């Protein structure tokens, strides 16, 4: 940017702040097709979030992340820390989905499903019910403190804090059984960490959805910034059609934009979409709904502000031509990779055996001679029964001639438990030359032949 000093201009000294005081944004409530979608997603995500924690499953909570005991229950599945790969895959799927949706239609996640948007939406609804619409709120903020203002603000913050605490409580309810937590809360008997996290998560909800709002998206969120790197010429973004709209105003010779400023009033981040794509735009489409209503009233066709692409605006593509370009290589590659990972994960989960075995060879004692000149090696088998019921398992060893198990061959394990089993393996004298020999341990459930795991190890003779 070139800052040109104007020669000859009077040297007028101005003091300039390099930090900006936040101007509270009071978005005007909006109704319409996209607002309906936003509310549908608020309901969908929050019914799941608030409700799922209460769902029972096999005498336990259906979804519970028991960090203290390192067991993670998700419906019928029990995950152990060794299953961290599934968490990794989940994160990869989430990231790829974000790439895909962003490439197709911009910041869909931000506008419709991000908790920051969803809770802000809920908090705004509460605000409107208590303090009134946009104009009433602006007037209330400007008014001097009165009993009425105090009562309204107290009621609003009280309601917000109640929602926030319930959110914090529900969040902790995924890590500690929620019914027990409810009883503990009832008797003011929660543990120090439970108390901390309920309050902390509650505070974060209250602070972010009540106070910070668009500041989170503008200054804190990294996704908001790097999503713009996934946009291209054919990404659907919320676009003002200047060719139709300009020049603004009413009367003959003017464009369709009547300059009512509804699009600015409804914007939760306080921008003017008519200036073009801006990094603050979270893609919530509130301005589309707002503008469409006005267009309806003044008798112009809808869509002065609409989902469109840069390419479509420049080349004047028809809607069908524009949508067809959604199937461009970038989108197809994202989709293919995403589906490949989802299908592979599904198959892996389907074939997942609720049994894990780790073989640890004793490092100190290489091999030893026992009665009759037999050579013996010692192993420890870490057997994890990741099913929920108790089971008996049979240990077997093979892979080399005359290999026999010289210790107990069956072990019993409780449900979702791990046991360290010392195992002795012997060979006949002279059956194997000195050196290391590959052997295989197999562990299988006595009640179900499909629950079996094979692990390799080595047998050492010297």
């Amino acid at each position: 940017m070139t800052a040109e000093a104007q020669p000859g201009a009077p040297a007028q000294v101005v003091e300039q702040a390099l930090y900006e005081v936040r101007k509270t944004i009071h978005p005007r409530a909006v109704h319409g097709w996209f607002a309906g979608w936003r509310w549908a997603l608020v309901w969908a995500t929050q019914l799941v979030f608030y409700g799922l924690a209460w769902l029972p499953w096999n005498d336990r909570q259906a979804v519970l992340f028991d960090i203290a005991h390192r067991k993670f229950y998700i419906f019928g599945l029990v995950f152990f820390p060794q299953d961290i790969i599934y968490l990794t895959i989940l994160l990869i799927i989430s990231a790829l989905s974000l790439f895909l949706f962003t490439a197709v239609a911009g910041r869909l996640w931000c506008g419709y499903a991000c908790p920051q948007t969803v809770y802000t939406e809920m908090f705004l609804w509460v605000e409107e019910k208590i303090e009134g619409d946009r104009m009433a709120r602006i007037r209330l903020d400007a008014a001097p403190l009165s009993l009425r203002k105090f009562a309204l603000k107290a009621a609003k913050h009280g309601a917000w804090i109640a929602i926030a605490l319930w959110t914090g409580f529900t969040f902790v309810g995924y890590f500690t059984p929620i019914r027990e937590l409810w009883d503990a809360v009832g008797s003011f008997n929660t543990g120090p960490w439970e108390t901390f996290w309920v309050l902390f998560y509650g505070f974060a909800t209250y602070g972010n959805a009540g106070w910070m709002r668009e500041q989170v998206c503008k200054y804190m969120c990294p996704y908001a910034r790097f999503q713009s790197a996934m946009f291209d010429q054919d990404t659907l973004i919320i676009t003002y059609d200047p060719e139709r709209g300009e020049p603004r105003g009413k009367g003959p010779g003017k464009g369709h934009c009547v300059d009512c400023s509804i699009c600015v009033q409804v914007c939760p981040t306080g921008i003017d979409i008519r200036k073009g794509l801006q990094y603050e735009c979270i893609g919530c489409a509130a301005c589309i709904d707002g503008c469409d209503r006005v267009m309806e009233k003044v008798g112009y066709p809808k869509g002065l502000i609409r989902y469109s692409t840069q390419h479509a605006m420049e080349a004047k593509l028809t809607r069908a031509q524009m949508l067809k370009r959604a199937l461009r290589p970038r989108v197809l590659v994202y989709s293919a990779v995403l589906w490949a990972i989802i299908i592979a994960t599904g198959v892996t989960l389907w074939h997942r055996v609720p049994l894990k075995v780790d073989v640890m060879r004793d490092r100190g004692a290489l091999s030893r001679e026992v009665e009759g000149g037999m050579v013996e090696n010692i192993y420890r088998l870490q057997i994890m029964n990741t099913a929920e019921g108790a089971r008996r398992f049979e240990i077997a060893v093979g892979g080399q001639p005359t290999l026999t198990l010289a210790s107990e061959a069956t072990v019993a394990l409780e449900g979702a438990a791990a046991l360290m089993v010392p195992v002795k393996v012997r060979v006949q004298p002279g059956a194997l030359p000195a050196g290391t020999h590959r052997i295989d341990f197999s562990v299988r459930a006595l009640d179900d032949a499909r629950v079996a795991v094979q692990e390799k190890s080595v047998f050492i003779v010297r």
Partner: protein
Amino acid sequence: MSQFTSSFWDLYITVITIVSIVACGVLLLAQSRRRVSGGTTETTGHTWDEDLGEYNNPLPRWWMWLFWITIVFGFVYLALYPGLGSYAGIWQWTQVGQLEQETARHQAQFGPIYDRYAKMEVAALVKEPAALAIGQKLFLNNCAQCHASDGGGSSGFPNLTDLEWLWGGTPEAIRTSIAEGRLGIMPPWGTVLGEQGVKDAAHYVMSLSGMPADSIRVARGKELFAKTCIACHGPEGKGNTAMGAPDLTDKVWLHGSSEPQIMQTIAKGRTDQMPAHKDLLSPSRIHLLTAYVYSLSRSDIAPHRK
């Protein structure tokens, strides 16, 4: 910091630390507002390459407060914790103090468990599965490296699961072995006996436990044994647990039972050391370990062991 003879370095650290933090505040103040002369384009006033300016896209005010909070935090931290030279801080925090605190907390949590078992006899402990479970963990962490995780030992490291004991198998003897350690020495007899003498003695030793042996060598070896070996291994070769001399009549061989292995033991001697653990493990832990090791070979009185 007693190793420093002058207090200069205390002062050095203190001054640098405080001046740096204050300088952060000054910088923040200096960069919050600026006076510009004229012009309508709002820029930060920074100019690069002669005419390249930067638009003023101001950070939110609350962000600036975060900077101030870190500065306040810095001073509060330096008041509470050591950070300014030799100043110990209001809370007198030290790493050693924290370690002691955590040790005390650990002791308060697990001490009662160990205390309860410390009062019980070994013979009673072997009937307590919970005590043996702790003993097993201690064994796996401290003993399994040599004696193997099942206690079965290895070449040179005794098997703890049989009833043959080098130094005695009573709870007291086991406790002494763990706490004080043991040093078992078989002196080398190669030069005294000569090669044939060593072979004769080896065959006699093999005959003691019923292994096939050359009868002529056995007869010659018996005489050598009576002269050189009985001092430690006894007239019948039954060994002596007072000095860790092994019983030669059983089928347990610490260094191998083949002829060459036995000959090497006689000719070159053996030195086996069990390290002392009294400085590494507390008495109550050694007590539990004793019970666990005792239980390994005594399935007759330890019902939970197979």
